[in-house]
């Protein structure tokens, strides 16, 4: 294998692998600072922060000859015998000089800048900058420019051009550009063509300083108050890995989490700004029983036993498994109704499909299917019903004849009145209808039992995306008072000991259903592909660039 020497340490890497000096240094645990480089974008080499010393070792004599000038690490491919020096005095001086140069024109308005706390310019200044400032401090200005989906603070920009390259290469829309020259360079858009595409939120994450501001997050929180939790976006069947950033159980923003197998470094705006429903006041927050005369508020402690009793009395059962349920919850619910009535029908809940898949030049796809777990729920239903999957559209015909007495309807849909009245008309004649949902809807209006459900960031569980990629997450925020996550209720109704343990259910699933077999082992943060053994047959793998 080829060997590179980085700060005296030897790094062996597979022949044919394309690495630059920054990546190679990272492998031996050395951090090289950089602004303009990003693993997902082309190399610009404009910030000069990653300057390193480079040279070669003569394989025959072992003699090392260094280049006289510093070279940008991002643009220096690592080959066999390459020697990189990242910590010499010359390199450190160069870094300090770049920092000083950037700070000449940068307004030091960190106290009111949203990026403060996660700003690379700040971090690198403390790490690599000079203690003393030799230039005058300019009165800070905060020219603000509305460039469409995001806000641009013109003077904070360090012209790394990451956002410009993102718009050209990833979203393929090329709205942002650099205007003027030299010290007057600025980021701007062409008049009448604002930054407006479904991936535009990513430029805010890409910005190493506070120049690009998220309009949704602007001034809401200081970043050091936020705690981040691993999450999965449940906005569509792509199932992007995200960070859920919250403070005191209130989500303030969602950010992409790097996952080379699903979403790389990006998420779409639709998913990014999909969290407000979690804190909507209209959410159901009280379990209720609707009798013929009155509506009775119920208590969670007695509810499991009462529900079990009513399910047993209802006769033939059916359960609508929502594609918003995690696989663990779907499995527990299926086990539950099948335990009460061994011939209970299992139906796949309504799958929301809006428009068509939105594909971006790099392969990133926003799915038209707006639910996270259709595949997982389908496989569970198929297991219980020996391969037969009933869709929700076929459900009313099964209800005809009045053979089914009780239906458990799990929802989790992100808005009110997500279903039309006609579609649920067949549910009116039921003896028992248990509805578990986030918001009031036409179904919950008919419910005998109306139970509040948890939102995506409030539950433990795993989701299977449309490419059979399973990811597990834990809850990020606690549900509002009065709400209990679905899994907890099913766990209690099944009489299992202790607290709801999603991992234990997943192990059970993996042992029982061959499709989930891979998930029986440790599930890494990026998830596992359930068809990993069949990958060769996969026609496409989204997100992975060739």
């Amino acid at each position, binding site marked *: 294998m080829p060997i590179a020497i980085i700060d005296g340490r030897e790094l062996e890497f597979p022949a044919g692998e394309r690495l630059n000096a920054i990546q190679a240094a990272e492998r031996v645990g050395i951090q090289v600072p950089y602004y303009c480089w990003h693993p997902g974008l082309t190399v610009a080499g404009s910030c000069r922060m990653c300057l390193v010393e480079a040279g070669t070792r003569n394989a025959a004599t072992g003699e090392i000859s260094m280049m006289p000038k510093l070279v940008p690490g991002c643009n220096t491919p690592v080959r066999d015998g390459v020697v990189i020096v990242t910590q010499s005095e010359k390199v450190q001086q160069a870094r300090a000089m770049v920092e000083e140069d950037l700070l000449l024109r940068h307004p030091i308005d960190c106290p009111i800048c949203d990026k403060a706390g996660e700003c690379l310019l700040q971090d690198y200044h403390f790490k690599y900058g000079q203690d003393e400032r030799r230039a005058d*401090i300019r009165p800070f200005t905060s*020219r603000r420019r509305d460039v469409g989906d995001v806000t641009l603070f013109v003077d904070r920009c360090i012209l790394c051009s990451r956002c410009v390259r993102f718009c050209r290469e990833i979203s393929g829309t090329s709205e942002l550009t650099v205007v003027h020259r030299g010290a007057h360079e600025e980021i701007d858009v062409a008049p009448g063509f604002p930054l407006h595409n479904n991936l535009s939120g990513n430029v805010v994450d890409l910005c190493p300083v506070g120049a690009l501001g998220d309009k949704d997050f602007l*001034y809401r929180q200081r970043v050091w108050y936020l705690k981040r939790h691993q999450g999965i976006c449940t906005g569509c069947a792509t199932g992007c890995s995200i960070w859920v950033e919250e403070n005191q159980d209130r989500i303030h923003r969602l950010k992409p989490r790097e996952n080379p197998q699903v979403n790389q470094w990006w998420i779409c705006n639709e998913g990014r700004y999909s969290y407000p429903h979690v804190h909507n006041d209209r959410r159901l927050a009280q379990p209720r029983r609707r009798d013929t005369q009155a509506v009775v508020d119920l208590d969670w402690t007695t509810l499991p036993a009462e529900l079990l009793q009513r399910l047993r009395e209802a006769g033939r059962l059916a359960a609508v498994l929502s594609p918003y349920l995690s696989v663990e919850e779907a499995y527990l619910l299926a086990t539950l109704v099948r335990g009460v009535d061994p011939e209970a029908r299992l139906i796949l809940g309504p799958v929301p499909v809006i428009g068509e898949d939105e594909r971006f030049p790099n392969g990133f796809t926003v799915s038209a299917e707006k639910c996270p777990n259709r595949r997982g729920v389908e496989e569970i239903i198929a297991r219980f019903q020996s391969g037969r999957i009933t869709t929700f559209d076929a459900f009313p015909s099964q209800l005809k004849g009045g053979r089914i007495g009780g239906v458990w309807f799990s929802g989790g849909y992100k808005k009110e009145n997500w279903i039309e009245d006609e579609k649920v008309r067949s549910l009116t004649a039921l003896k028992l209808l248990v509805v578990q949902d986030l918001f009031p809807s036409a179904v919950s209006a008919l419910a005998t039992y109306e139970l509040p459900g948890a939102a995506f960031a409030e539950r433990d569980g795993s989701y299977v995306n449309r490419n059979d990629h399973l990811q597990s997450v834990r809850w990020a925020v606690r549900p509002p008072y009065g709400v209990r996550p679905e899994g907890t209720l099913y766990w209690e109704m099944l009489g299992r000991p202790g607290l709801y343990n999603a991992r234990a259910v997943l192990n059970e699933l993996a042992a029982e259903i061959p499709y989930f077999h891979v998930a029986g082992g440790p599930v890494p943060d990026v998830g596992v592909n359930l068809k990993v053994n069949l990958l060769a047959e996969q026609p496409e793998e989204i997100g992975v660039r060739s």
Partner: protein
Amino acid sequence: MKPDDKDIQWVEEPDLGASGKTYLPLFVEGMTTTIKHLLSPKMTVEFPEERHQIPDPILYRGVHRLNRDEQGRVKCVACFLCATACPAHCIDIVAAESPWPDREKYPASFTIDELRCIFCGMCEEACPVDAIELTSLFDLSGKSREEMVFDKEKLLSIYDRTKDSEPMRSVRMAAEGKPVGGERPAILPETEGPPEIAEKDNLAEPGATP
């Protein structure tokens, strides 16, 4: 530990002696202290008829106030540094975009729970724009806990009440010829006047779509 442990050192009471047993020397010593204090100048005052004179209001840490700039607007820029520095977590700020063209951010709400506050002065030290200051008012009282949670208006009114007797620290230090902001170079040089602001950019036809 046992009583015969070698690490234990037993100390006997000193012998008082004959004169000591009469307690007279100690009595004289005590009376001397008492009489000395009787004759020395009084440290106490008859509060509330008489108020304690605070030697240096700039050092005293009493009730907070929120300073105003020349135009009467709240000086605070809602940077949350005071709330971050506060060890008692008694400051709660809600930031919003400022309604003024020369400012970016301002506090839509600013509350201090004076009952929770430990009057350490960290907020004052953290503030980059000299907006929050501790005054020399010490007799704060209220009829309920809610009343002791001071909001922005209340804190500004304390400034209005105390601005003549205690000018802003930055003003006073500038008058005394001291560098404002101590040894460090001030981060924000234009705290006293409106900063020099380039005109706000506006996109041509911001609402236009391609």
